């Protein structure tokens, strides 16, 4: 992402071609990401079908309040990043920078709330492989629920972390004046990535927090 103004890298004919390539590259990358998460969702589907009772019981362990809060935080962050892109498109700068800072802070908040949840799990001893003290006939299958919950949320959290770093970088570049209403591709594709992070959570949340709770 070296070009800062409407200059373009030497392999491209012009800036328009570069923009098209960068955007399309990110979309292709997002397709890959969907397959990454797809494995975890497929495993969830298989095990939920195999062990419905254990998974329902596992679902009841997750914290509905904190989970809802995380969802609200992340959805809001998607809104702020979209506004930041819009502001740049309209020729803004200061506003866009603060919106990006806000998005990054919301991302950090999401991770922090998740940390609270993980700590509660640790105290309740439902972290497989670290501290898991469930007993009873459902315990082995319930362990599967938590394994998938942890792999999925940690992998998602990794994406949130990368996203936060990316957005902070973009905020810095906006402040430096790297982008204009004509040239903002890096910002746009970072926002695209952030929306993916958000959308994945929109699937994680109902599957692990809502389904089979009652």
């Amino acid at each position: 992402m070296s070009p800062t103004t409407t200059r373009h890298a030497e392999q491209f004919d012009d800036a328009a071609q570069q923009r098209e390539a960068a955007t399309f590259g990110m979309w292709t990358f997002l397709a890959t990401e969907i397959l990454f998460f797809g494995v975890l969702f497929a495993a969830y589907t298989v095990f939920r079908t195999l062990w419905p009772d254990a998974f329902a019981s596992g679902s009841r362990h997750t914290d509905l309040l904190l989970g809802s809060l995380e969802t609200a935080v992340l959805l809001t962050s998607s809104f702020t990043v979209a506004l930041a892109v819009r502001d740049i498109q309209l020729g803004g700068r200061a506003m866009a920078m603060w919106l990006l800072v806000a998005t990054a802070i919301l991302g950090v908040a999401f991770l922090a709330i998740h940390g609270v949840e993980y700590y509660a799990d640790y105290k309740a001893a439902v972290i497989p492989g670290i501290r898991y003290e469930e007993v009873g006939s459902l315990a082995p299958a319930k362990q599967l629920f938590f394994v998938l919950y942890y792999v999925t949320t940690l992998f998602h959290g990794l994406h949130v972390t990368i996203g936060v770093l990316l957005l902070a970088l973009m905020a810095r570049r906006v402040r430096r004046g790297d982008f204009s209403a004509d040239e903002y591709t890096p910002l746009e594709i970072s926002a695209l990535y952030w929306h993916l992070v958000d959308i994945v959570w929109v699937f994680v949340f109902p599957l692990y927090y809502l389904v089979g709770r009652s």
Partner: protein
Amino acid sequence: MTRAEHTPPSYLTDGNTLRSWLLTHDHKRIAILYAVSITFFFFLGGIAAALIRLELATPAGDLMSAETYNKTFTFHGVVMVWFFLIPSIPNTLGNFLLPLMIGARDVAFPRLNLFSWYLYVTAGLFTIACLLLGGVDTGWTFYTPFSTMFSNSHVMLTVVGVFIVGFSSILTGLNFIVTIHTMRTRGMTWFRLPLFVWSMYGVSLVMVLATPVLAMTLALIAAERLFGVGIFDPALGGDPLLFQHFFWFYSHPAVYIMVLPSMGVVSELITAGVRRRIFGYRFMVYSIIGIAVVGFLVWGHHMFVSGQSMYAGIVFSILSFIVAVPSAIKVFNWTATLYKGDIAFGAPMIYALGFVGLFMVGGLTGLFLAAVALDVNLTDTYFVVAHFHYIMVGGAVMAYLGGIHFWWPKITGRLYSEAWARFAAILMFLGFNLTFFPQFLAGAEGMPRRYHEYPAQFALLNVLSSAGAALLAAAYLLPIGYFLWSLRYGAVAGPDPWGAKGLEWETASPPPTHNFDRPPIVNDGPYAYDDP
């Protein structure tokens, strides 16, 4: 032909330091980096294969222990699949030719391209570390729960290596897809793309969409081993079949990662050798995409005896028959292209014809294995081993070498010795058949795979096979010799020694760093050999 002095320096002379190679963004130099590293791994995997054939030359397990044998064939499989076959054509010929063939200066993301080579090398170091520390004995398939609960070998190291090399694949695929979509020169419409480019497009789709599934599955294996949790372990409520589904969801399409590029190469070789347009260009394109898509839906044919449901078996069987249709279309179209043609039997054409024949044998025996009732008898026998070696060695390696010969003058600017090249190609074809055809017979008689000893009744077939392997080894070593010779003593090739069509032949050999003096303009489809 004579544009020597006042042209820009070729990519080979544009910077002579090690640094200028290791930090290059030039797709052609990255292709060379890949070519050198995959050749290294090819011979490493080849040594393992030689040891296997040596052990199996006698019925008794006298050369190595069962455990060492397991590690040897695992190493052979892991190295050949992930460090040779999958990157072979896409990362060497693909990297070199794709931008040239579409008239671009480079791929869309040159730094990402270099980065994927470094990922490959890092992954390779993990695999070599694993070998030096004592190896891994799970087979290249890492079946659970053996790989997660029971194996005491270096599963983690290997899994990490394969995980990393997967990212190299994904990034290459991503780069190619974007390059083909956005970097085609003026007039290079989708249906004027050479079939090699189409095959790169198909293979990139598979790389980008299948490899993440493998990566995540391997991550789950690592989690299971590290934390003792039971995702795939039935004792802890997990499901080993789920592992097999995930694994083959990647690893069956991976077969097409190996063979689709070969089909692309062969289409170029055949048209240039017979100087004709390809027969049924559009159907060739549709069949590439058809294979890429349907290839995603047939993974269950690796699992007929695994305990998946009977209905799943039937569905996967039918889908596996369907995927043979586009493959057959390609074979028929190659044949039709050659029919009554004036064929020049240069080394590339010999490789191409070898590919078509061996791929056909591999494909037809694949139909045997796609039939559930037959597969139940043949699974885990040498019939399966022979079948996939016909596709992978007879198909992919033949096409890779054919392609290397065909584009060698373009890559190096020199001509190799045609007589030696023909001799090596024919020796390879004979050696290959002698190695693997007896394995069909041994497998049909019930010889199981993956044992270091076998009943004496299979001795003759195995001796033949081991003898064939020796011929094959010689045939693989020969090109190293005459290729190196050609670098110094070979005749200067000129831009287009074969009189072949395609944008890559319109620039100098070796091409300048940015490929073309000015962006080429295309106004006809590929293989326009009928044009004056």
